């Protein structure tokens, strides 16, 4: 009996692997073109990194004055993207909103890829990447609980694990044609909600608690709302290129939530700007640098105003039902919001913290060629992983890819495509 089931398992595994490989290598020409494009970018990034690894961070635009740059900005932005999975899970599971429930797995996989990108950005930013084991318990000496970076490593890994676990569990259940055991998996799904809040809260605390940097001493740092906008774009691409069904209703609901999140973001941002400008203390220097330039240095001014205009425009696009429910304006809004938040919660959040320096020196930062290549490479690698993950996840969800029939009674198999719709 034991042998038989083991043999059955191996057979199933083999079947799964063969099917996966076939699905990964087979695709329309546009699939190959897409992967080739990403691989080319990954290659550039890898070349850039090998150069940085042998020459040091000297090849970046960073200096002692502005000691964090493009890498940490992208890390911060991507934490917000990762946390966005929660904006899909809350309506799907807390309010039992069916249309979104079908697509949460895609959001969770996006979170997984965003966290992987986050970790890559942090790793390539350190001067001694081969020493990162010093952070780990038992072999290293983690400065826990004192260092917020230690906390961030903990919550990011935890979030990665929860999302991987939930999405693999759901996919495996569907693949095997079994009923999802919500009693088992729901606690994990619900746990991921506060955990998502924790990842951008702790990431905000990285900056928040530094008395040396008044620009960051603000309780409103937590980034949000660009992840769902990315989801809307991705879901449309998915339903265009696959048989996977995503209802318009789901997309419009997400847009509604983005609108609320963006409204809150703009309110908090204006509160922050008011506080700094009306107080009119010397601590306003970074925000003046950001929005108007300081002593003739205006490196970030055009960027932040672009971001602000994009964010306000997208807010109104998502607010007005007519533009929210028109796919042309909806997609414009999504693109505006992704770019706007990438600037505002990336470079716009990190760089002014360093300008002026604690000794009042103004030293501007501009990313250089190699760090831009490396940054693009990491983005491409993350998108590459996401593409491959979807290439397997979507056929499982649509029922095109399933386990060998002998393993499951035929009756159950027929419901496999829709088992996610099964209620709580």
């Amino acid at each position, binding site marked *: 009996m034991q042998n038989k089931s083991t043999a059955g398992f191996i057979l199933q595994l083999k079947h799964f692997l063969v099917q996966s490989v076939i699905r990964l290598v087979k695709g329309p020409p546009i699939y190959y073109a897409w992967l080739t494009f990403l691989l080319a970018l990954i290659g550039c990034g890898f070349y850039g990194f*090998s150069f940085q*690894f*042998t*020459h*040091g*961070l*000297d090849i*970046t635009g*960073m*200096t*002692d*004055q502005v*000691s*964090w740059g493009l890498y940490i900005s992208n890390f911060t932005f991507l934490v917000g993207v990762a946390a966005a999975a929660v904006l899909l899970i809350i309506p799907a599971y807390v309010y039992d909103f069916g249309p979104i429930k079908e697509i949460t797995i895609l959001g969770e996989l996006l979170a997984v890829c965003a966290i992987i990108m986050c970790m890559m950005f*942090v790793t390539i*930013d*350190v*001067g*001694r*990447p*081969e*020493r*990162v*084991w*010093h*952070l780990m318990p*038992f*072999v*290293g*000496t*983690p*400065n826990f609980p*004192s*260092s*917020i*970076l*230690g906390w961030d*490593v903990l919550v990011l890994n935890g979030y990665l694990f929860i999302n991987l676990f939930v999405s693999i569990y759901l996919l495996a259940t569907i693949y095997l044609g079994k009923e999802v055991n919500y009693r088992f998996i729901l606690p994990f799904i619900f746990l991921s909600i506060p955990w998502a809040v924790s990842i951008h809260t702790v990431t905000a605390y*990285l*900056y928040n*608690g*530094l*008395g*040396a*940097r008044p620009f960051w001493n603000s309780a409103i740092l937590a980034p949000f709302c660009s992840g769902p906008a990315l989801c809307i774009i991705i879901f449309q691409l998915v339903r265009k290129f696959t048989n996977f069904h995503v209802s318009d209703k789901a997309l419009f609901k997400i847009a509604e939530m983005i609108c609320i999140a963006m409204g809150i973001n703009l309110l908090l941002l204006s509160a922050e700007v008011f506080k700094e400008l009306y107080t009119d203390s*010397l601590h306003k*220097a970074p925000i003046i640098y950001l929005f108007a330039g300081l002593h003739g240095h205006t490196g970030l001014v055009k960027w932040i105003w672009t971001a602000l205009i994009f964010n306000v425009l997208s807010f109104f696009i998502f607010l007005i039902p007519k533009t929210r429910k028109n796919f042309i304006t909806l997609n414009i809004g999504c693109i505006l919001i992704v770019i706007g938040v990438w600037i505002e919660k990336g470079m716009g959040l990190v760089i002014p*913290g*360093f300008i*002026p*320096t*604690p*000794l*009042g*020196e103004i030293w501007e930062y501009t990313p250089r060629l190699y760090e831009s290549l490396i940054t693009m490479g990491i983005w491409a690698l993350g998108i590459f992983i996401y593409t491959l993950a979807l290439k397997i996840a979507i056929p499982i969800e649509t029922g095109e890819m399933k386990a060998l029939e002998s393993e499951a009674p035929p009756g159950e198999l027929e419901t496999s495509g829709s088992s996610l719709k099964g209620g709580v």
Partner: protein
Amino acid sequence: MDRRKFIKGAVSSLAVLALSGCDQTIEEFLQNHFLEMSKDDMEAARNRLIKQYREKFGMDFKLGMEPALPEVLYSYGLDLSRCIGCRRCVSACVQENNQSRKPQIEWIRVLRMKNGSLDLEESEHYYEAEMVPKEGYYTIPIQCQQCENPPCVKVCPTKATWQEPDGIVVVDYNWCIGCRYCMAACPYWARRFNFAEPSIPKDEINPNIHYLGNRPRMRGVVEKCTFCIQRTRKGRYPACVEACPVGARKFGNILDPESEISKVIETKRVFRLKAELNTQPRFYYFFSI
């Protein structure tokens, strides 16, 4: 300890591969945190470093690992009415502490301020001068303030920087991962990062070094002022104190009521930079005139 050894053994073979493109030996890669080293570990690290420095600079280094002296807590005083802004402290510090010449690293920054202002944003960092001091200006040198409540130590994710019993905040250059979180946390901009491989001409090397102080650093780690730990733990003054031509710099043991620094704090009206941040610097500024 056994588990640690086991895991280290397991990763070492992978490490060899990873390090092939790197400037580190396997012994260096697996070396322990300084505070967790046994006597043998320390001896091995010393021999390795001396050998490495001999190969690189062609001379024998005296590498000290002296611990803090008992009943000693260092403090520093800087007399702003004497300082003329000649920056001799800066170059003495660079020489003594083997700071990289290219790229240029300097632990002391001297700011020139308009009389009547203490607004750092108005300060001039890169003044050129044939003669100092300049009419209408005063100068304020700033280096690590050796805080009693150091934010840099609090944020370090690997405990690679810490405060010694004599109050000096040090860095284990072999344990620092180079994340630069301490640099973001320091309100005095006292920390520097080796963005590139540091370089020093062979004839300008100072071979009298301390493990936690002025030993030559490697690329990708953070460094800072250590009150010249290699000198002060042997009862000498820091190089900046010795180099100052006007005697603006005072240094000593605050636990000794007869020391010069104790007298300064007792008799002068001293202040500390950015006192509102509660970092409690052990570095006092004062005006003697």
